[in-house]
């Protein structure tokens, strides 16, 4: 019983980390039709910034997160302007190759400046303690991550479904030429969406560092994981991504607890099964 | 009945929206039928249903008395039910000669062979040049399709269809988008189609319809509203309503 509960909490927290990072990728892929394999690279950049801020500058956890998100978005703006804008609407292969190239560059450059070692982001006192929830204790960090994931899900849903920006975004996605004609500045909409996606990657990279440790090959190591999660969920769907993250988080965590020898075996077996059954992902839009 | 081709009560709806309602028609060998109708009448949907790109909600398609409704698009082509496309679907970096050769080889079930040369057989080459010659495409036979005129691309669509030796040919707007200077060439090609072939042509150019068709079927809102001689079409009140009424009600169409 204890084991089941701790597996469940870990799986939920891991699933939420995946969700925070992947939902940004899901938005870029589903709404902007860009297969951005460099998404994880931005999460990694954020991790490095947070680690630098917390350990070398001695800032607090919240300040480190804030600095990481803004810093990563600032870095991403020229990349969006000069690289991504040129592959909107290109074939998937083109997008995959350019963003793999970008990932390689980020890995090489990060390592040049920060060195090849693993970076930690020290947790504040409040998050590194266990919390008593009545019948048992749970690590506070797990709860924090789960809360972050829930907040991101609700916030994004609100942004897309209930705000005027959300209306413009959906209109641009449905028919960008028409939106342009109606006076929506589609380039700006794309740029803002991209920045939001990158900001979420950054947040996920920092709060998820306990699960996905920050090191130079991070961007490559989890590239596949993130892409797989998004396509299982169905690109562009918030509930789809949430379901995918929770299911795959559960499959992966359970597999690791019960049969650690098998590594990622169950994860990828589940992926093949799901993609064969739902070629567009759980809740993907018809193309 | 010895109809070569029959459609019985064909219907299709997407969600609750019926796009084809209870369409029945038949064609003997040698038929020249024009299917016309206002935009959005469901003409291309009808072709897609007949050729197997779409599954009908109800009804049957019969070829030579055989029910082919359950067969996929590929099997229907192999049985002689062939179509062209409204917007040309050609391979821009291949030549007309390569297109037709590939089609002829496919018809002979030799297109999946690895251990033979593409241009190896002189029989195939003769047939290919015969077809290209009939359609007046021999001069551009070795140019890439991306570099030949649009009218010639439309002719190549017909050449590919003929290379399949069809029994029934569905031409989806063969003259669409062709500059008027080139339409005589299309018309000429249509006149030279094998006499025994049953041809159903969708077309907007009424001059072409009147010259080509022996019989006209008018489709409006997914239903057949007229079937008869070309000379009677213009006088039919339902047809007038379908076409002109469309304009009378049109408000939001730019």
């Amino acid at each position, binding site marked *: 019983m204890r084991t089941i509960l701790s597996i469940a909490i870990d799986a939920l927290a891991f699933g939420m980390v995946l969700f925070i990072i992947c939902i940004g990728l899901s938005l870029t892929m589903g709404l902007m039709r860009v297969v951005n394999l460099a998404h994880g690279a931005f999460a990694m950049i954020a991790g490095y910034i947070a680690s630098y801020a917390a350990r070398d500058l001695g800032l607090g956890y919240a300040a480190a997160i804030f600095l990481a998100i803004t810093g990563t978005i600032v870095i991403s703006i020229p990349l969006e302007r000069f690289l991504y804008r040129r592959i909107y609407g290109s074939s998937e292969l083109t997008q995959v190759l350019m963003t*793999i190239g970008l990932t390689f560059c980020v890995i090489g450059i990060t390592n040049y400046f920060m060195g*090849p070692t693993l970076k930690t982001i020290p947790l504040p006192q409040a998050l590194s303690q266990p919390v008593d929830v009545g019948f048992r204790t749970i690590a506070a960090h797990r709860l924090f991550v789960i809360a972050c994931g829930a907040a991101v899900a609700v916030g994004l849903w609100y942004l897309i479904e209930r705000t005027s920006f959300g209306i413009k975004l959906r209109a641009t996605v449905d028919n960008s030429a028409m939106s342009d004609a109606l006076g929506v500045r589609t380039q700006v909409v794309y740029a803002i969406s991209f920045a939001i996606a990158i900001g979420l990657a950054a947040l996920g990279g920092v709060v998820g560092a306990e699960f996905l440790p920050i090191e130079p090959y991070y961007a490559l190591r989890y590239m596949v994981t993130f892409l797989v999660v998004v396509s299982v969920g169905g690109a562009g769907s918030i509930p789809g991504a949430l379901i995918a993250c929770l299911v795959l988080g559960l499959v992966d965590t359970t597999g690791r607890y019960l049969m650690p*020898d098998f590594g990622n*075996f169950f994860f990828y077996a589940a992926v093949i099964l799901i993609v064969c059954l739902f070629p567009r992902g759980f809740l993907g839009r018809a193309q | 009945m010895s109809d070569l081709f029959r459609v019985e009560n064909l219907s299709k709806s997407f969600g609750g929206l019926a796009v084809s309602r209870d369409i029945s028609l038949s064609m003997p060998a040698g038929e020249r039928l024009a299917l016309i109708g206002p935009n959005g009448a469901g003409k291309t949907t009808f072709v897609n249903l007949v*050729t197997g790109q779409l599954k009908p909600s109800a009804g049957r398609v019969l070829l030579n008395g055989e029910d082919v409704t359950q067969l996929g698009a590929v099997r229907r082509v192999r049985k002689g039910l062939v179509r062209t496309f409204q917007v040309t679907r050609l391979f821009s970096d291949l030549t007309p000669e390569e297109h037709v050769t590939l089609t002829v080889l496919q018809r002979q079930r030799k297109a999946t062979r*690895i251990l033979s040369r593409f241009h190896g057989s002189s029989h195939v080459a003769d047939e290919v040049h015969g077809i290209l010659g009939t359609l007046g495409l021999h001069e551009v036979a070795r140019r890439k399709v991306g570099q030949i005129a649009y009218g010639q691309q439309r002719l190549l669509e017909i050449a590919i269809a003929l290379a399949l030796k069809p029994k029934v040919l569905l031409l989806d707007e063969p003259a669409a988008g062709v500059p008027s200077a080139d339409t005589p060439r299309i018309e000429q090609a249509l006149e030279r189609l094998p006499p025994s072939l049953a041809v159903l042509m969708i077309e907007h150019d009424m001059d072409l319809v009147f010259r080509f068709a022996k019989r006209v079927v008018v489709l409006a809102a997914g239903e057949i509203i007229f079937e008869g001689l070309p000379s009677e079409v213009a006088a039919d009140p339902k047809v007038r309503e379908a076409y002109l009424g469309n304009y009378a009600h049109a408000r939001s169409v730019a």
Partner: protein
Amino acid sequence: MHIMAQAGTVSAMSKAKSHHWWRDVAGIALIAAFGAAGYWLFPDNLALLTRIVAVALLVLSIDLVVGYCGVATLGQAALFGAGAYAAGIACVNGVTEPMTLIAIGAVAGAAAGLLMGGIMLRAHGLAQLVLSIAIVQLFHEAANKASAYTGGSDGLAGLMVSPLFGVFEFDLWGRTAYLMGLTLLLLVFIALKFVVASPFGMLCRGIKQDPVRIRAMGSFVFPVLLKMFVISGAVAGAGGALAAISTQVVGLDSVSFELSANALVMLVLGGLGTLYGALIGTVIFMGFEHMVSAINPFHWMTMVGALLIAVVLAAPGGLSSLVERISASRGGKS
């Protein structure tokens, strides 16, 4: 008039045919010459050159699927690894004749290609790409888990290959392995030139551009693509077997996403859908990798990344298309 026009096209046809024929013979002679030059110029680096040949087979196999059929894959190393492990396991169990081992690798690769194609071709677009990744990761985990047969993460070591044709020992400098690999590459290349020039090859090119049109021509799409996957698997598997024989060890990296991605990058650098591009890309990529990563592997990543971005944005046809474009503009001037 009509007959004359036909006669004109026929003679034009035979002219064009002989033109292509000469080009391919020249190209193959050039590959052989480069291979031989490598042998004389870099006698101390034959192990690297053999590795390049093995990877070139992998990249050729990707070109068949991506360049000729338009099916994007990031999991081709699954087929390479299948060949490598099959040859390795056979060798450890007493089948030591090198040509037999290559054949075993090719058969295993073809079988893996059948499986992989059977799964991947159910999906399209992004889902297809993701399936390819999932399959190679699954193969990787399976190879890792089945350590009784594969040696797991330690790799399958100690392959003792008997002399080629009973005469040529696999020497310490890798001369035999290299010459065998080069010959294999040439034979495979010639065979593939025939495959892509066959009706089947033309059908694949058609499917790449418009599967709907191909169906309307009365041809099924799935079996044709599956056939190409099997051929591609045989080529990749032969490459894997060559790698296993020449290094006498099979590691988990031979069935990895990284190798798949790198091989795809090599293909794109060289240019898709020409077969020559695959070879050019492999040689350039691995040559530079050898030089730069000796200094610092991270510099290498930055460089490849920058090169990849540049190729995608500036020369989508790959480096070989640049060469063609330059030679075409020169030909235009003269």
